């Protein structure tokens, strides 16, 4: 990650949107930042953590997003500007606190919640548009349209937050948060953070002054007044911009990623004189006067946004309150199917939509070139599927899980969860994961299945989770399972990191976000304390792991835990050399003959096991082989051997 506290005020740096947001937070003088890793938001706390000591601020990877937001709120109560960051699913987890802090208010210093949405779910399990929460819970929200804004909005937002006394939100999407662009830097103030919670009881004061949500309807009304104040600020904000002719043929209303796409498209179609763009940086509440003025410029209005028709709906809703003469617009967008209401916004979709609304023909490419493209054989451009890295302990764990369930033979199955091991939905994990929703879902489902024996259910259930996931949301499910005597096996993949999102620490690891020694929390101790039977396995020992799993499955009663403990290969390989040199003896390799049929490369599918169709044998790709040696026990012919690497 880039060095976000670089001393280069006035100069331009190439930052990703999240780094710009983090820099913006520093320039706003924050003292506290907390988050749970989630794409596309992780780099905010990631980059702040790297400079935390130097900048004398506190940065934390919290166990989950609810705690992260609560912790950040505490800092605000104690007089520090603070930031919480999470992906859209994290917002779901934190939403109860979010709903209530809106009513109970913040402290003297601003509190900003950043949420990163992932349209098209490049790194997520669902598509969600977090802008809805601003209208739903009455929270002022902004969204940057480019990288400079991502930084500049932060200081402005803290000022707003303090002026109106409310939590404020900054929403971004993958194509801004993870894209890189020019950011001209400002100064990072030297802030002295002094923390004190002023709202303590003064016995002389009979008025209740706790930070609270009651009387609720009244506090709800207060929040609406705060929104009105925010709206007034939004009317004046330079984050809302109109570019284009006075009276365009088409008015585009957009925010976030749509801003740059719209400009690009107008550029490509050469429609600068016909198309105007209103870019809203303030998402909610609507700057109504500004919107009204822009709506008067053109008849045709096209909304460009992702993922849901949020501006489309709120502005159409607003326009219906205008006088009949003012209501002259024809609105285009997702409700007219000019833009997809699912997936992400793309430059191609934007060009197509504008051309369609203005009835313009646009040839994407020269017809002769298109013919050439069509002549390219389909199998020249093969798909590269996602799979576990060579040496990943998940591959070995799932091999044992598969064998145990198949041998058990009672139709047992795995309920999946979120992490690298989610890839077990596919061939990487032998299609073992049979359900997939959110953090904690696997164990929650297992609790339900585990009670259905009353209705004839006799299939063994294995819920899986990662180590970070365990602390995040599995513990309550395990408590429920043991207390209510549900029947299921919980398999925890303990690879020592929050791997999928970038190897962030979690309560089981040695260091905190800021690199200090952490109090490591033993997951087996927790499971035992809850009252589950716990077995610890080395997933690389296929035989023992399979036997342990079979034993656990056979027990049938109660919640049982198996911890698969082996470090993530990417983490391990940074510290150590490969443990073994692995070789395949082509004489012994049966290839695709009966008795083998390429079990290692075709079924086990480690990327380092490469099938050579010419030789009719599998060989090891030495460049990517991690030297873990697990495949030695896969080969039915003993053709794979490993030799310990002796360090000279």
């Amino acid at each position, binding site marked *: 990650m880039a060095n976000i506290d670089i001393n280069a005020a006035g100069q331009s740096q190439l930052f990703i949107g999240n780094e710009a947001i983090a820099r913006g937070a520093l320039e706003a003088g924050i003292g506290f930042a907390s988050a749970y890793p989630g794409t596309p938001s992780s780099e905010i706390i990631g980059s702040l953590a790297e400079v935390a000591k130097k900048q004398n601020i506190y940065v934390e990877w919290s166990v989950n997003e609810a705690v992260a937001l609560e912790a950040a709120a505490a800092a605000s109560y104690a007089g520090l500007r603070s930031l919480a960051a999470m992906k859209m699913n994290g917002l779901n987890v934190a939403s109860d606190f979010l709903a209530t802090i809106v009513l109970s208010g913040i402290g003297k210093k601003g509190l900003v919640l950043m949420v990163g949405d992932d349209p098209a779910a490049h790194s997520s399990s669902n598509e969600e548009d977090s802008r809805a929460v601003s209208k739903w819970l009455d929270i002022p929200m902004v969204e940057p349209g480019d990288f400079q804004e991502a930084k500049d909005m932060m200081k402005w937002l803290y000022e707003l937050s303090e002026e109106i006394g409310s939590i404020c939100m900054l929403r971004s999407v993958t194509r801004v948060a993870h894209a890189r662009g020019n950011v001209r830097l400002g100064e990072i103030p030297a802030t002295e953070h002094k923390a004190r919670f002023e709202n303590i009881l003064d016995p002389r004061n009979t008025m209740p002054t706790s930070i609270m949500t009651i009387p609720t309807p009244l506090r709800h009304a207060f929040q609406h007044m705060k929104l009105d104040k925010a709206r007034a600020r939004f009317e004046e904000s330079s984050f809302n911009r109109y570019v284009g002719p006075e009276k365009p043929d088409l008015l585009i209303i957009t925010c976030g990623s749509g801003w740059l796409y719209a400009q690009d498209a107008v550029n490509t179609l050469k429609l600068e004189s016909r198309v105007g763009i209103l870019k809203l940086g303030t998402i909610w509440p609507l700057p109504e006067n500004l919107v009204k003025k822009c709506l008067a410029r053109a008849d045709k209005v096209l909304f460009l946004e992702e993922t849901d028709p949020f501006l489309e709906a709120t502005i159409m809703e607003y326009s219906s309150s205008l006088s009949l003469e003012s209501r002259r617009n024809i609105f285009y967008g997702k409700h007219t199917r000019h833009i997809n209401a699912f997936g992400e916004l793309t430059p191609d979709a934007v060009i197509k939509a504008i051309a369609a609304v203005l009835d313009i023909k646009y040839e994407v490419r020269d017809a002769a070139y298109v013919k050439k493209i069509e002549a390219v054989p389909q199998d020249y451009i093969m798909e590269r599927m996602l799979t576990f890295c060579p040496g990943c302990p998940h591959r070995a764990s799932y091999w044992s899980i598969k*064998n145990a369930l*198949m041998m058990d033979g009672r139709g047992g199955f795995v309920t999946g969860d979120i992490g690298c091991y989610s890839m077990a939905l596919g061939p990487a994990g*032998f299609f073992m994961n049979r359900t997939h929703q959110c953090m904690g879902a696997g164990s929650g489902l297992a609790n339900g299945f585990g009670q259905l024996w009353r209705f004839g259910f006799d299939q063994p259930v294995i819920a899986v989770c990662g180590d970070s996931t365990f602390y995040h949301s599995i513990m309550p499910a395990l408590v429920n399972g043991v207390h209510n005597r549900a029947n299921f096996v919980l398999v925890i993949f303990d690879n020592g990191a929050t791997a999928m999102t970038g190897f962030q620490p979690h309560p089981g690891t040695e260091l905190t976000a800021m690199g200090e020694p952490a109090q490591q929390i033993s997951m087996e101790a927790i499971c035992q304390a809850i009252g589950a039977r716990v077995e610890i396995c080395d997933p690389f020992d296929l035989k023992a792991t399979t036997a342990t799993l079979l034993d656990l499955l056979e027990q049938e009663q109660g919640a049982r835990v198996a911890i698969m403990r082996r470090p993530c290969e990417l983490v391990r390989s940074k510290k150590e050399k490969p443990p073994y040199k692995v070789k395949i003896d082509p004489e012994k390799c049966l290839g*695709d003959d009966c008795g*083998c*049929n390429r*079990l290692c490369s075709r079924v086990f599918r480690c990327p380092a096991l490469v099938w050579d169709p010419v030789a009719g044998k599998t060989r090891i790709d030495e460049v990517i082989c991690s030297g873990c040696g697990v495949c030695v026990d896969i080969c039915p012919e003993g053709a794979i051997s490993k030799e310990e690497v002796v360090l000279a």
Partner: protein
Amino acid sequence: MVTKTKGIGDLFKEVIDKGLCTVCGACVGDCPYMVFYRGKIRMLDFCNRTEGHCYEYCPRTYTDMDAISNKIHGASYSGDEIGTARQVLMARAGDVKTRTKGQYGGAVSALLALALDNSLIDAAILSKNTDDKLPSGFVARSAAQVLEGAGSNYMAYPALEALNRMPKDSKDKLGIVVTPCQAIALAKMTASPPTQRVSMSNVQLSIGLFCTWALAYDRFYEFLKNNVSPAKIKKFDIPPPPANRLDIYIDKEVKSYPLDDIRNYRMSTCAYCLDMTAEFTDISVGAAEGVDGWNTLIVRTQRGSEIVDAAVKGGKLETRELPASNLKHLKEAALLKKTRAMAEIVKRTGDKNDLLYLGMSKTVRDKLLS
């Protein structure tokens, strides 16, 4: 032997999922895609080959009885009650110890001991019981080790798995004890030997066990767990008719159970088996009706004959003439199994031209259906 070889998919579709699997073990031991576990053959992964030894050797895929009979005995399948028999004798082990440990007369143990001692074989593939009385394959290399595997527990067990597990380049001469269905699989393997396993020419001696039916491992084991402590069981015995009971020897006492109840734990596939006396082996051994402590022994091949002679000469085996009434009853029982099975097969297929997995001449078929 087989008109068309198919693969694992068809094996499961046609045999295992249809409840026809006899758990002979011919398909496991050398294949990483299947494993025998708790009484059943389980598929771990899908081997997408369209042709495989698993289908080829299975005694419940198409079996050309003439081809097998020709291969083993040089004659077409006649449908005779006890198959090709050079001699039918009564026999028992020469020494008391073997007799006591062994089933009935301990003849199987005695023959194997002799074969090992005379280096006619280097290893014998048997099954022996674990403490929980679950049979598992093992390789015996001495007479003493053979005795560890003595005694029957009447459960179907994949003995051929142990054969498939022998190292590919093993030079060991092998003896193997098989049930009738396993003998058929063994014959198929001999006719079309696998190249990636131990050579079939290593198999020097096959001893068949008389078998009316076998008990399903998982269900019978449940019964055992619920009625006795499996670890305490010393021996099982189903005395010949008219006893009609299963005796379980535990320490000093014997617990008996009506055979009619025990029959509930039979494998359903046994209903379709024609072979009571293991017709396609060198020597077949079973109980001797009405004669305690003796086996009925059928010598079928030249090899079998040589070994029995050597055993008798060496004092390892005592033989006597089998009383005519015993032979008559044996043949009756064997024929009954054939006719019952044929009836069940035709009942299942609904067509006497479809004998499920069997191929035989129309003459023999009609003879057995009449």
